[in-house]
């Protein structure tokens, strides 16, 4: 009956039978050292290196010089950086709620047990997640295109240029559609998995109380998956701020609209690989990383606070 001694939050501690203080147990390191080793090499070291780089400037005269926080001061006043930042922020505010809303609707529909062929729905809606971003963008890019795309076909049929996916005012919507297509199913699965873990007793109580339809969704299902919604929101925020693949692959098709500083990540990339400005590129990456981490943290705090209430 050692199970009784196991506190729910501390299932990690092996029950100790002796009263003396246990000796330090290094056994865990047998398991965690390989991950730690690669983690240090691919996370900690590059991060430290980026911080180091961001404090220097490669000048025409004098070579590599320590400049303190000059790069950061410059980044905070850099219109190209802020323009890209504003773009991903707009993208985040519009695309993420639409995508998560659709994912939630799909998850609720599948969880309602009122669909025919539920399993088929679940798999097919999740399927786009398995398609590589490059292929997804190529497919949509072709479909958007005015050469042999669907957009061209529809415009021809309508007799006017109604759909112009690569026009300046359209291109963010076009990218948003591709991202939504790729990730609705992924978020749907996160929500659906959480819905399945809601205790049945709650539904039984609701049935006795005579709750129906939307009442059950509002009173039981949505509060029950709040944790999953917070997690999905955080991942989507991180994804939006990192936006790179979709605009980068679309760039050849809309080169006059999608510039090298279209998103902060593309900016950091072009600074490095087109401009050789490694120090400033590292600075932009760090500023963006800090902003992302802070916003993710705030969402996490808000999410858990509401959960307590």
């Amino acid at each position, binding site marked *: 009956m050692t199970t009784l001694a196991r506190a729910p*939050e501390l299932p990690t501690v092996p029950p100790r039978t002796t009263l003396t203080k246990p000796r330090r147990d290094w056994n865990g390191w047998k398991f965690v050292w390989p*991950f730690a080793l690669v983690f240090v090499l*691919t996370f900690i070291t590059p991060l430290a290196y980026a911080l180091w780089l961001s404090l220097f400037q490669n000048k025409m005269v004098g070579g590599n010089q320590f400049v303190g926080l000059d790069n950061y001061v410059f980044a905070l006043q850099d219109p190209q950086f802020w323009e890209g930042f504003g773009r991903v922020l707009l993208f985040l505010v519009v695309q993420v709620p639409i995508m998560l809303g659709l994912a939630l609707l799909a998850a609720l529909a599948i969880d309602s047990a009122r669909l025919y062929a539920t399993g088929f729905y679940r798999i097919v809606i999740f399927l786009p997640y398995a398609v590589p971003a490059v292929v997804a963008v190529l497919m949509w890019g072709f479909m958007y295109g005015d050469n042999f795309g669907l957009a061209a076909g529809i415009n021809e049929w309508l007799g006017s240029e109604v759909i112009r996916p690569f026009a300046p005012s359209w291109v963010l919507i076009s990218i948003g559609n591709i991202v939504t297509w790729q990730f609705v199913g992924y978020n749907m699965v996160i929500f659906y998995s959480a819905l399945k873990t809601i205790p049945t007793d709650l539904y039984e109580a609701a*049935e006795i109380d005579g709750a129906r339809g939307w009442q059950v969704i509002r009173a039981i299902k949505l509060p029950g998956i709040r944790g999953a919604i917070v997690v999905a929101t955080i991942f989507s925020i991180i994804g939006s701020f990192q936006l790179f693949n979709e605009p980068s692959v679309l760039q*050849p098709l809309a080169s006059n609209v999608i510039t090298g500083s279209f998103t902060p990540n593309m900016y950091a990339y072009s600074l490095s*690989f087109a401009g050789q400005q490694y120090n400033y590129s590292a600075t932009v990456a760090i500023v963006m990383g800090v902003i992302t*981490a802070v916003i993710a943290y705030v969402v996490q705090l808000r999410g858990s606070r509401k959960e307590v209430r």
Partner: protein
Amino acid sequence: MTTKHRTINPRARRAGSRSRARRRNPLLAPRKSLALTIVTATFLVYALLPIAWLLINATKTQPDLLSTFGLSFGSSFALGDNIAATLAYDDGIFLRWLGNTLLYVLAGAGGATLLATLGGYGLAKYRFPGRGAYFAVVLGAIAVPGTALAVPTFLLFSQLGLTNTPWAIIIPSLVSPFGLYLIWAYTVESVPTEVLEAARLDGAGELRTFFSISIRLLTPGIVTVALFAIVATWNNYFLPLIMLSDPQWYPLTIGLNQWNAQAQGVGAEPIFNLVITGSLLTIVPIVAIFLFMQRFWQSGLGAGSVKQ
């Protein structure tokens, strides 16, 4: 949050009571709705539209691509010719890219799954010096945008002489903080400490206990992590884009994008039919793996998504 965890733990028993309840509670076993099925089918159309477009257009010749409507077939059925041309183009570079992709997936995703499993398990079942800091740093890393690290990683690797080699793709793929987190959550839920205690009393070493007992209990979690790692490495774009300049080491994603870029600019030599057929050939294996493994990831993902 703690109260929520407690209610989640007895998974098996609850599933049983739910299926019993489904029979009598109209909230759990409602009548099927044709209307809802049809409305929800909008999602199916949306998800399948580009894939249908790809399938249809992979059967067209390049002139047909340019002259016929996107969602109708062309005047000839050239799928076989297109596949043969894709595989033969540029001395069969497509097959080389496929081989590279397989190498990156096997080594990268395989290694990532192994490291995440060992690490998540170690964190869940052992108290060791430095555990708190370890956990905090790895969880913090989930929020660090991966691409923020890409440029410094590239500079670091180029100083080590690793760029333009497979190591530049494999080594960064080995670390999956989210995978470690999923295994941690799954271990807490499904590997009872008493079982490990019993094995220890029998004199089994820690690693032997893990490989003979725990790993079986963790299988659904491991498959889930493997699936996400496979998708992530198969679909990887940013990392190989910055690390590789030699087409001999390209994975499929970079190669396809390069083919597509041939259509632009001066002296353009568009091979749209090859890009489309190549895209189709790229998604077929990953979709097959996905469908094959789908019955496993269901249970594995549940653990991670509810425990934040």
